[in-house]
């Protein structure tokens, strides 16, 4: 569903820094929309280490990635930011009136005078196995996700991986596939126990094949896979016929379409000044791990500071004719009203 939204600030990335930016902008009455490729807020904190403890957030001696995210989401509630999750920002252009238009792969358009790139190291995308020529098959016979199960009916499928996605899709696709083989480098899995048991049951009844192996080479023509070379841990190799290959090795972070936004990049980072955290393109700010400046440290706490200064500068872009008066949340009744505590 295409949707067009007009707001003050479009924030790219709903990790901890993007979330806190909503707070700092909100105190200045600036409204924000957040876009993130993941299906929930938190970025790396929730995707990579939801249960791992973080020890260097001021005032919180220890907090997990998930809890920090939950607290930030709670903290920014009063400001009613709109989330556009499960969407990859794929285009940025400038309108005739000087505002920016950020487009997503789901057809959403967010139009705002200010764009804040808080994208961490980029987008979470599926890990691509280092197999020669795999890109030629992607989207035709190599898939990293299942959009419509029916597309796989009657296929001779090879699934690789040992996590929940690999096991879940092995179990779900087995009934509709002509043939399904799961390969993994060991006879053990990090997936849910009941999924592992279900898979073993299917294998024991000949509904699927399970092999301890990894994929070394792909064979086919014009993007259509005809088979693969498999190798066992002791380096024995053999051919395996299949027409569909689905590697499930989780996600990794790639810069992605931000590289095409026409921004000045230095080694995949956005250089900013340290007064406004604005890029060399006026109106485009960058905060958190995605930016670079002399002395930069990739710490969440530094990103919080960057968000606060960015918000002050963003105010002047969004409200060029208004005066900004600096206030403290402890003493300002107008700020407390915005926070819903006064």
């Amino acid at each position, binding site marked *: 569903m295409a949707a067009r939204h007009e707001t003050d600030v479009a924030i790219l990335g709903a990790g901890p820094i993007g979330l806190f930016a909503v707070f700092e902008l909100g105190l200045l009455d600036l409204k924000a929309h957040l876009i993130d490729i993941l299906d929930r807020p938190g970025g*790396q904190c929730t995707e*990579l*280490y939801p249960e*791992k403890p973080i020890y260097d957030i001021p005032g919180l001696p220890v907090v997990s990635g998930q809890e920090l995210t939950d607290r930030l989401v709670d903290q920014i509630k009063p400001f009613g930011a709109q989330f556009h999750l499960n969407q990859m920002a794929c285009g940025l252009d400038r309108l005739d009136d000087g505002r920016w238009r950020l487009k997503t792969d789901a057809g959403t358009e967010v139009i705002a005078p200010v764009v804040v790139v808080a994208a961490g*190291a980029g987008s979470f995308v599926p*890990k*691509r*196995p*280092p197999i020669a020529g795999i890109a030629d098959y992607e989207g035709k016979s190599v898939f990293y996700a299942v959009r419509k199960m029916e597309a796989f009916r009657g296929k001779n499928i090879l699934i690789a*991986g*040992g*996590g929940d996605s690999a096991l879940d899709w092995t179990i779900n696709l087995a009934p509709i596939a002509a043939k399904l083989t799961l390969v*993994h*480098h*060991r006879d*053990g*899995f*990090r997936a849910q126990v009941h999924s592992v048991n279900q898979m073993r049951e299917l294998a024991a009844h000949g509904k699927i094949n399970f092999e301890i192996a*990894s994929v070394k080479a792909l064979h086919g023509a014009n993007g259509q896979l005809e088979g693969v070379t498999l190798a066992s*841990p*002791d380096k024995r190799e053999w051919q395996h016929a299949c027409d569909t290959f689905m*590697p499930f*090795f*989780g996600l*990794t*972070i790639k810069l992605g379409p931000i590289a095409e936004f026409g921004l000045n990049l230095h080694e995949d980072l956005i250089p900013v000044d340290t007064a406004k955290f604005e890029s060399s393109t006026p109106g485009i700010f960058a905060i958190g791990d995605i930016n670079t400046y002399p002395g930069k440290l990739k710490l969440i706490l530094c990103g919080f500071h960057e968000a606060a200064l960015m918000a002050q500068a963003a105010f002047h872009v969004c409200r060029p004719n208004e005066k900004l008066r600096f206030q403290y949340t402890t003493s300002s009744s107008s700020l407390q009203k915005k926070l819903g505590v006064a």
Partner: protein
Amino acid sequence: MKIIATDRKGDLHTLEGRDGWSVMEILRDAGLPVAAECGGACACATCQVYVDPEWYDRLPPKSDAETDMLDMAIAVEPTSRLSCQITCAPELDGIKVTIAPE
């Protein structure tokens, strides 16, 4: 202690390990291309190395968390380890590792 690291081009690097640091941190500190996306929390499998077979058995065994996380690594070999889970120590002086493909 020394760490002898082979990068993805096949070039050798002799690095000075620091007691208590992880091999991942030493590799990254030297500017070698280990992504280590999670920063060393055994949560992303992007710091995989192949340990020289002579050294592999001399390392403390993998934790369950590391074994699990290696299921999310690509191109896993029998001597694969996550370099964030190998801690520099005097007895590892001369350890040889090869950075796995990304």
